[in-house]
């Protein structure tokens, strides 16, 4: 029999022997994961909702001059910024046409002299840079040029939504930290309980020359099995609930608010909590073994 399958069978045996403790910690973990994913999904949905609202498509720059040479120089410089996708220069004439194309039924525009329209430059941003932090950087960059009169990127409400978005991210971050700590504690407590239950057995195995791998790994395996099961089940519950909300409630109200995180986000979440679980399990087993491998205490 291979070492691995032996240790695996042993961990299944432990899991069964400790069924009562195991089932309690399994339910606790499932609940924690579920609550976390619930909060995360709400946060994620809200975040993507505000992201569209607060995203800045382009920056508009009004100029002090009509000097083509200076303007071309400026365009050349701005094009080099890595956040910039495209630059279009609007002469007063273009500016007039632009306004005309984007408004309807404003007949009086035709009576205004074209000289009144400002010339401006529209800077299209790359997708990754449509966030407030980058916009401010770009704005400072642009304002360094003398010919720039004013750089604008939208309205005040963009800022407001952006701040809601960031508060939400901080909230999720804090929840993640708190849950990480509780998962570590649950893992430590469960393994500790199980180890104490088998203390005599562990002492004897240690006396007859069992390696640390032989003694610890089944407990680690049992903890990992529990983690995988409870995470998988919490994902299932979470999906069913949000699909239910989407299909039966929100869709009938014609709201498309809920956005479930994609597989990569779930995988990252699983890997993160898995690492916490494994590290906590290792820590407590080694600590326990240091004491328990003393035959006479």
């Amino acid at each position, binding site marked *: *029999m*291979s*070492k691995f399958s*032996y*240790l695996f069978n042993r961990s299944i045996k432990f899991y069964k022997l400790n069924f009562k403790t195991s089932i309690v910690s399994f339910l606790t973990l499932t609940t924690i994961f579920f609550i976390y994913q619930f909060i995360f999904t709400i946060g994620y949905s809200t975040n993507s909702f505000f992201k569209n609202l607060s995203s800045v498509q382009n920056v508009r720059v009004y100029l002090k001059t009509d000097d083509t040479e200076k303007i071309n120089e400026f365009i050349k410089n701005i094009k080099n910024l890595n956040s910039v996708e495209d630059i279009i220069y609007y002469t007063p004439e273009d500016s007039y046409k632009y306004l005309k194309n984007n408004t309807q039924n404003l007949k009086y525009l035709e009576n205004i002299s074209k000289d009144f329209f400002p010339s401006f430059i529209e800077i299209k941003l790359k997708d990754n840079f449509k966030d407030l932090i980058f916009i401010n950087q770009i704005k400072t960059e642009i304002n360094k040029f003398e010919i720039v009169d004013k750089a604008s990127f939208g309205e005040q409400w963009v800022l407001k939504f952006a701040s809601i978005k960031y508060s939400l991210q901080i909230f999720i971050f804090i929840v993640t930290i708190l849950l990480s700590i509780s998962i570590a504690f649950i893992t430590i407590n469960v393994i500790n309980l199980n180890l104490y239950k088998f203390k*005599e*057995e562990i*002492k*004897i*195995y*240690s*006396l*007859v*020359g*069992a*390696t*640390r791998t*032989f003694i610890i790994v089944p407990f680690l395996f049992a903890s990992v099995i529990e983690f995988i099961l409870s995470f998988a089940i919490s994902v299932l519950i979470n999906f069913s609930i949000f699909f239910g909300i989407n299909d039966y409630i929100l869709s009938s109200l014609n709201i498309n608010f809920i956005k479930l995180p994609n597989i990569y986000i779930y995988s990252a979440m699983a890997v993160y909590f898995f690492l916490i679980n494994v590290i906590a399990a290792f820590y407590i087993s080694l600590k326990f073994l*240091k004491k328990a*491998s*003393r*035959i*006479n205490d």
Partner: protein
Amino acid sequence: MIKLFNVSVSFYGEKKALDNVSLKIDKGEFVYITGASGAGKSTMLRLIYADLLPTRGVVLIANKDITNITPKSIPYLRRNIGVIFQDFKLLEEKTVFDNIFMTLEIFYIKPEQIENRIFSILRRLGLFSRRDTIVKKLSGGEKQRVAIARALINEPSIILADEPTGNLDPERGEDIIKLLQDIANQGNTVLVATHDKALIEKMPARTIYLKNGKVEADTKNE
């Protein structure tokens, strides 16, 4: 087989449990370690199976210095040492067979694979008919024989027994010593810690007397 050079053991600054002990025990020897309660008998055995590290001095087992043994290599040392206790240290809820099997289980073996080996040691110790009995239901003498079977099954070259007769009536105790002497005659090194003078007189062998952690006498040097 076992060598101690100027070995001292102290527990957190209290008086020394062993004080500058030097001795040499050869392969195939049967040795009593005796002395009053608190003289350091158990401490000496614990040093040998690395349950304890010396505060000072050097301990050699089969010419290997175990003074600075790492936790990782302790199991490999213990696989070559069988230990027997006064309180047996058996799992009371398990069967005789399963208790003995624990020594072999650590090699990732299935019970079926080494059934015959366990049966033969059970026969040798007169426990074959009790193989599926739960240890809790055995007499003291039977329990001690199970503990001996567990210590012997992996054929270690050193057997350590800490008061193996302490919980047995004198007759059963003599049987156990007889058995351990037979094992020594087959080339194994056997150390028995006991304070039972009558037993030593009845079944004499090399005896090391400890007093307050010091070797007071060793019949081999007389």
